[in-house]
């Protein structure tokens, strides 16, 4: 899974609810849910030190 351009995003109330990421060339909106395979892989790469997630705007 090729992941880049990761950034948290917030809901209307300012709560952090997901990660915007480019995965295998497609812009995706990944929920913060350990059962989601994209979220799990993002966090695996973050834990391995190969990926960082930018703060929400």
């Amino acid at each position: 899974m090729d992941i880049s351009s990761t950034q948290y995003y917030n809901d209307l109330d300012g709560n952090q609810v997901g990660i915007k990421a480019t995965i295998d060339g497609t812009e995706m909106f990944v929920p913060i849910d350990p059962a989601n395979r994209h979220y799990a892989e993002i966090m695996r790469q973050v834990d391995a030190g190969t990926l960082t997630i930018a703060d929400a705007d």
Partner: protein
Amino acid sequence: MSKAAELAALIGSQTALSNRNLIINGAMQLAQRGTSSTGASYKTVDRFFYSSSNLDNHAFTQTQQAVTDLAGFTNSWRITTTTAESAIAADELVYVAQKIEAQNLQQLAYGTSSAKRVTLSFYVKSSVTGTFSTNLYQADDARVVNSEYTISSANTWERKEITYVADQTGVIDNNNGTGFYVTWNLALGSSWKGNAATAWEAYNTDNWAGAGTYTDAVITTVNSTWEITGVQLEVGDVATPFEHRSFGDELRRCQRYYEKSFPQGVTPAQNNGVKGHSLYAGSNDGGSIFGFKPYRVEKRASATVVGYNPSAANANFTNSGSPVYNYNDATGFSAYTTNTSGSRALLNWTADAEL
């Protein structure tokens, strides 16, 4: 085996007479993402994926294929090598698989003295003859059992049946995570084979595949093909005839893991003019538009969402800005934008909750 004997075996083994097949989309009827791709992972037929590790130069296509030479089946899933891997190094691996949700496997009673055997059956056709490896991998406890099958005649459909022993040690958690990988290996470096785990063992790379001599030629030969259909995994040690399900039944099962706003038969894409089951967003407070899309089938988990503009080559709402995905769980998602030129807009979408 005669039909009467099959029925007697079914009744005698207390095997279910319907809903036997633990595999979803085993006849490869559904290909919601598209019918052809050069990419790995989930790209064409629903619920099945292609995976490789550490290859140097292999390129391939995966396709949902029309079948005309196997009675009762209309589709298969084909892997075609378009650039051959020159050699298979020790750490290289190629397999295709379907992951089965753990809570759908509780009837197997794994981790108890009542654990049950399962039998895998499938039709396979390849330009390559020889012996191939398969396995079941149990994700919660990282345990594996492997087996093999032989393709005797090139480019000819052959039915294979493999019974896997029960596991009285490893426990499959009762949740929405991965229970089994049901795996067919296509290339195996030496690190991935050598241990014939005919009974369940703790996974240790060398028991991913057995101790046989397995062909890698599908991956190392340009224009070689390997395709499969009629996949069934059922409780017990009898391979019964493939349980055909209706298109609508199979679609609903697949939609637990992947759903799209586009009609079936339409590959998700931007700017294709299709509105389908798109999200409709209306004026929220005059300064933004907002919409909620409930899924037709509740997802296994919160889904990854991709947006598609129906009328332009971007991921925005129609005539508006990029969506912010505000709310997202297994039942649906919402999106809004403050960058709008009107009071309403549409957005096509896909939602992926695959294992």
